[in-house]
């Protein structure tokens, strides 16, 4: 067994602790919270693409599904926000299972198209079903998460909540990265035929991974809902799926650190350069292409190689 990447975990904990205790500017804390949300999504996609070799470009749709399920259930039906999160995750799990199980048995490439289609369709539904979702103008009046006597209404308390969730998530991911499960997934990525001859059913495993990651993304979407208190279909369009793809790839496919690095880097750039917005998609597409063509390990992979060479 390999050892856990303690340096990374401790570093992340320190950074989060620093932001939580020292930074007082509400805006910066808000940006940090959003970055954490992006990081969770990017890592989920990284596990799909980097570990198992499943391309999904409908992650934004699962994210949006989670957000809408949580918003509708908590606002219209008065269900406790904390309870809506697992429901949202379950909904996404079922949807992903239904979409994934016929497709993943076949050619893996089909899934990219199918998830693209699913993303577009869910986006259409969010816009058209305005009697439930509020349509293009968005869904308003979403409440707060209340845990015991803490009401997570202000930026700071929500940041603390998100940091705790994020650290738990990261720890689980690190454990996964060192587990035998991760070897199984990488085995599937490298050769499905070899897997089959060792008694692994690639299709079933892939569907489970795909559905679990969809559920995770939807859970995260539910958190996002209670953070922003306002959601509209624009946040869950094809563009966000592409951003996630770029984050996971640039950060480094197949490394847990990769998703986090990519999300922080690509998430911060638009905040720093405001002129960036205009050419955003070209830059994302270009980065995606260049990293895949020349640096398949992304930033995390390159760093790791450099460290190994010098050690």
């Amino acid at each position, binding site marked *: 067994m390999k050892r856990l990447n303690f340096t990374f975990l401790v570093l992340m904990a320190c950074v989060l602790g620093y932001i939580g205790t020292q930074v007082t500017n509400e805006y910066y804390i808000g940006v940090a919270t959003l970055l954490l949300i992006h990081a969770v999504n990017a890592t989920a996609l990284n596990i799909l693409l980097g570990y198992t070799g499943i391309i999904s470009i409908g992650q934004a749709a699962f994210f949006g599904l989670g957000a809408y399920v949580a918003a509708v259930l908590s606002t219209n039906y008065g269900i406790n926000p904390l309870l809506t999160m697992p429901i949202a995750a379950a909904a996404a799990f079922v949807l992903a299972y239904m979409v994934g199980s*016929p497709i993943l048995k076949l050619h893996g490439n089909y899934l990219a198209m199918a998830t693209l*289609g699913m993303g577009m369709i869910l986006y259409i539904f969010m816009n058209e079903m305005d009697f439930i979702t509020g349509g293009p103008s968005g869904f308003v009046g979403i409440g707060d998460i209340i845990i015991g006597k803490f009401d997570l209404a202000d930026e700071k308390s929500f940041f603390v909540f998100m940091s705790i969730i994020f650290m738990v998530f990261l720890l689980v991911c690190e454990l996964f990265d060192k587990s035998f499960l991760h070897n199984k997934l990488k085995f599937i990525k490298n050769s499905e035929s070899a897997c089959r001859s060792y008694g692994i059913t690639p299709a079933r495993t892939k569907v489970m991974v795909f559905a679990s990651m969809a559920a995770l993304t939807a859970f995260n979407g539910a958190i996002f809902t209670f953070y922003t208190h306002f959601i509209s279909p624009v946040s869950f369009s094809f563009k966000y799926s592409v951003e996630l793809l770029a984050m996971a790839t640039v950060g480094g496919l197949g490394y847990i650190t990769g998703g986090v690095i990519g999300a922080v880097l690509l998430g911060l750039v638009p905040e720093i350069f405001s002129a960036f917005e205009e050419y955003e998609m*070209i830059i994302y*597409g270009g980065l*995606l292409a260049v990293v895949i063509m020349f640096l398949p390990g992304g930033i995390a992979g390159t760093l790791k190689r450099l460290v190994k060479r010098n050690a």
Partner: protein
Amino acid sequence: MQFLYSGLTSGSIYGLVALGFNIIYNTTGLINFAQGEFVMLGGMLIYSLFCVFEVPFYTALPLTLLGCFIIGVLYERVFINLARYKTEINLVTLTIAASIIMRDVAMHIWGRDSLRVDDYIPVVNVQMPGGVISSQSILIIAVSMLVAWGLNMFLKKSKYGKAMRACFDDQTAAETCGINVRSVRIMSFAVSSAMAGIAGVIISPITFVTYDDGIMIGLKGFAAAILGGLGNFWAAVAGGLLLGIFESFSASVIPSGYKDAMAFFVILLILFLKPDGLFGRKKATRV
């Protein structure tokens, strides 16, 4: 009947796009995500040449196709050929990246508005049994059938076509027989993007052309290809026509906002029931 006519019109476009998917899938085993973007590009180029620079149509059309052809070659050279690690998943991700880049470059060149391309032929409504069909629709159906037939002849009769078909069957064997597989790959990208260009040219007077048309049309072309079964040319055309008819009939039942969702349900349904497509044959997988 009216639905049948409008279904055939959009269906023949889907058929052309599906043919493009087929060509690339057969030579490289890839689903080319940028297929729809080439349709958009065809429409955009003809708009610039024909409507902005007012080049005569018979000059503008070959120039547009040549443009798509060249961009197709460049696309293969830059994105597919340069990739250092040519695993399938990397290449598919690259085509996604390429489609994003193409779409956004198009947005910066041509703007976000829908562009109207002038009609190529005078618009007349022809009375047909059970409905009317416009001359434009007839043109679209005729041109796409002609292109499908031409492609078929090209593949069956010409030297390059035969080389391409050899590569579809077995790349290693084709290479042993002295066929340059590399140039066949380039050729297949170029031909399929030129075909997408034709689709873009003939459809843009009716639907107009917007920079983000490519996603939806690519998706529907893919649905048509799956419906017919990847790897079979006439099946792709038939799949396109079926999808078009299905879509226009469903538009009469469900609200039109959901019309685009039909293509996706078709994909799922077909994959559930008959994964090799309606007319597809089962292909043995090799390890």
